[in-house]
């Protein structure tokens, strides 16, 4: 581990964990991005992963992404569940042959010593139905706790990934609880400060969890959400239509942002409990269709490798 002051040590500091991972992956040649400025359910949905995973161009990026899962909200009362939490996401395309070693070194960098801990790669097949994506890989266990998801993307938006990208996703709050040895996310030391200077996760996010849970479960106007869903779906198709020029696409990214909007509205509707099981499936299919159209569009852009 590099020498860093105690307030930056991932064992004392949530932001120290993020900064250490950023530094580590920067040293591996990744571009370090900031979070996408729209709500999404997982770091995978960031254009830097889902779109960049498609097409022939090499790409290495790392970033922390707030992930919004309205149904997981518990008004800040459950020690392990939040409707808003952070994922640290790394994408390496093509997946390098030493990707497992690189990943393990990142764990060493945040203070997990392999001489003391039991690190394991346990089968986990990953699938994201709304993105039309799947891959094979593992959950990575540290002493019986899942600390990351490790996936080799095989398909995204219904298209084969070639070359294959390796995706690493660290669940930051859970990892931090382990490193800081606390039982509840809200108890995490956020800034590594001590005494009066200490800022906890609760100081930063408890009110947010309470208010957002109330909105997600009780207050969100479902009529408006249904409308926004339909609007996003319609706008996505309209953008793709307007952006199509011969064999090229000029607005793949704006179209994809409408997919993010539709998916988030769907998640909010789900949290409000107004989508039945049968309808649920049809909404997921509608979002997947949009994802596929956007993936196809991306492949017709320079970023997607179109000539």
């Amino acid at each position: 581990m590099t020498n860093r002051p105690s307030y930056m040590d991932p064992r004392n500091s949530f932001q120290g964990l993020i900064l250490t991972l950023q530094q580590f992956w920067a040293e591996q040649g990744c571009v370090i991005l900031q979070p996408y400025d729209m709500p999404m359910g997982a770091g995978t949905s960031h254009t830097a992963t889902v779109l960049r995973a498609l097409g022939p161009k090499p790409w290495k990026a790392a970033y922390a992404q707030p992930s919004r899962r309205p149904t997981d909200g518990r008004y800040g009362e459950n020690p392990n569940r939040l409707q808003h939490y952070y994922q640290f996401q790394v994408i390496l395309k093509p997946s390098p042959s030493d990707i497992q070693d690189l990943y393990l070194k990142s764990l060493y960098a945040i203070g997990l010593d392999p001489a003391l801990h039991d690190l394991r790669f346990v089968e986990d097949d990953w699938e994201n139905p709304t993105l039309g994506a799947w891959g094979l890989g593992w959950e990575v266990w540290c002493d019986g706790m899942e600390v990351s998801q490790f996936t080799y993307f095989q398909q995204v938006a219904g298209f084969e990934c070639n070359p294959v990208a390796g995706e690493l996703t660290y669940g930051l709050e859970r990892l931090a609880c382990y490193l800081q040895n606390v039982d509840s996310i809200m108890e995490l030391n956020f800034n590594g400060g001590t005494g009066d200077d200490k800022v906890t996760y609760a100081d930063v996010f408890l009110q947010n969890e309470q208010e957002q849970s109330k909105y997600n479960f009780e207050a969100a106007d479902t009529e408006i959400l249904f409308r926004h869903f339909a609007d996003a779906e319609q706008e996505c198709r309209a953008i793709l239509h307007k952006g199509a020029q011969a064999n090229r696409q000029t607005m793949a990214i704006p179209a994809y942002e409408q997919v993010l909007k539709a998916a988030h509205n769907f998640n909010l509707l789900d949290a409000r409990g107004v989508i039945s099981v049968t309808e649920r499936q049809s909404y997921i299919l509608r979002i997947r269709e949009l994802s596929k159209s956007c993936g196809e569009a991306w492949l017709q852009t320079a970023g997607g490798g179109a000539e």
Partner: protein
Amino acid sequence: MPELLLELFSEEIPARLQRRAADDLKKLVTNALVDAGLVYEGAKAFVTPRRLALTVTGLPGRSPDTSEDKKGPKVGAPQQAIDGFLRGAGLASIDDATIESDPKKGDFYVARIDRPGADAVTLLSAILPKVLNDFPWAKSMRWGSGSFNWVRPLRAITATFGAENEEPVVIPFDSNELSAGQTTYGHRFLAPEPIRVRRFDDYVTALERAKVVLDIDRRKDIIKTDAEQLAFAQGLTVIADEGLLEEVAGLVEWPVVMMGTFDPSFLKLPEEVIIATIRANQKCFCLRDASGKLAPNFIITANTEASDGGTVITAGNERVIRARLSDAMFFYAGDLSLPLEHGLPKLEDTVFHAKLGSQFARVERLVKLAGEIAPLVGADPERAKRAAMLAKADLTTGMVGEFPELQGLMGRYYASAQGEPADIATAIEMHYKPLGPTDQVPTEPTSIAVALADKLDLLTGFWAIDEKPTGSRDPFALRRAALGVIRIITENGLRLPLKVEPDLLDFFHDRLKVMLRDSGARHDLVDAVIAEDSNDMLQIAQRAEALSTLLSSADGQNLLAGYKRAANILAAEEKKDGLNYIGTVKQDALVLPEETALAFAVDAVHAAVAGHVAKDDYKAAMAELATLRAPVDAFFTAVMVNDDDAAVRANRLNLLARLRDTMHLVADFSKVAG
């Protein structure tokens, strides 16, 4: 003799695929060796999370020379035929062929084709890449920029060939970006350095030094033995779990077993919940104390020897289990705070099947059906209806949401907790059973009523929407449901005719046949006791058993021979006469004492058998039939059926028809082989 060592070193192979992969590797390589003419003495495959390995011993250095004679056209055949023969046989000129004579066909050409043997290493360098390309992984993937598929990225290939006292050669081949070599690696953390291997012997030893136990069965033994010793030291026993043991052995190359503890206050949870939590999420074993109660301990199998002796690893696992059990406690308390009925409205939102409505609609059908079945199986209809109403309510509880495999069981706990009578609580758990040919069958009347209702509703529902099983496709486990109905009926001795449409009844017949055959009954006997409209499963099973007993006796065998003879004569004569004999025997047309004796015997037996059958006493019916052996034998010895007197002949044929019909009261003996 030379031996082959092959190792495919990869990133972590899913535990559940490992053993099958080792078997496949052995089969693919040895089949290809034999096809190439390389016979071997022994082969054994091994698997760890990171490697598939194979040793094949007693191989020849070369495949043997072979030759084949290929017959050609006649001497003097058209040039076109001769040219074709030369091309096919690879001969330059017809002078290279010999001429053979055949007394019938005359002279013809024969080409002798010699195939020299090939060097084993050369053959292997073609065989091995093909094995890799064709490997039958259930699910495989690509990685990096390659197009090769493997279960997870393949990182190194070792392939050596050589005899014991010589330096082996590396079999030269490439796969994807890899070339075969003789370098492997030890344990990921304890001994990651490259290891140069030569042959299987030094390979196994080197791996063992590098903290890798190659043999999965040895890893299982180590885990089992060490776990039992740790438990014994604390006065505990490990709860045996072969599936978990196999999986855990597939997650480690160097098993290190340790014991952790959890807060005894969690023991307030149903023990099945604790075991499910610890097993499914943590892949740890649970333990019992001397009195058989669940102990607040668990067994961890780590994949490493930690420098602190495992303190940190144990603490980490305990921490995760504490969090998981806290979650379970939270769900359990939450579930208990509401009556089971509370979940019913939510079942309206749960689709059972698009064409069969919601789970709640299904519950309503179950209530009605269980109420109807109850009096037939000795259950109280109101109790059966109550149990059916609550049977699916636990599907909406937090605990079953988290652990679907606890469905039914949690319903039982929650029903007991809210004071439901014991038979209702039991029925909620047991109504899913039996889940297969060896699973426990419900025996209490309330449970039986709901279990039958559950399965019959499933079957009639899917039959109504034409979603029947086809071939190996049975997504709704309808075969299992039908077998469940049959087992509940036969094992509880229930007289319960199945009033279902003919096609579904036929499906029940098929399942019953499979069940009876699996339990050792002869095909033909089962067929002999099932008629198209037999809807009483117990009766069929009882008939089959009685028939089998009868036919295992000498009387039964002889009677069967007599029956066959009678049936053959009847069939022939009925065909000749163009009419059916219906068995009306005229006393005054009986001539010989043997036919009179048989006529009286058949009459008496007919009445007795009919009486026994009416009481479903097939044993007695069969015993009664067996008494016909002597008069039947005597009849065929003394009596000529085809008498010149037409009236006598017709009367005798009627007597045989009467015998046939009497025997058919119990089974269709025409279907019995013999």
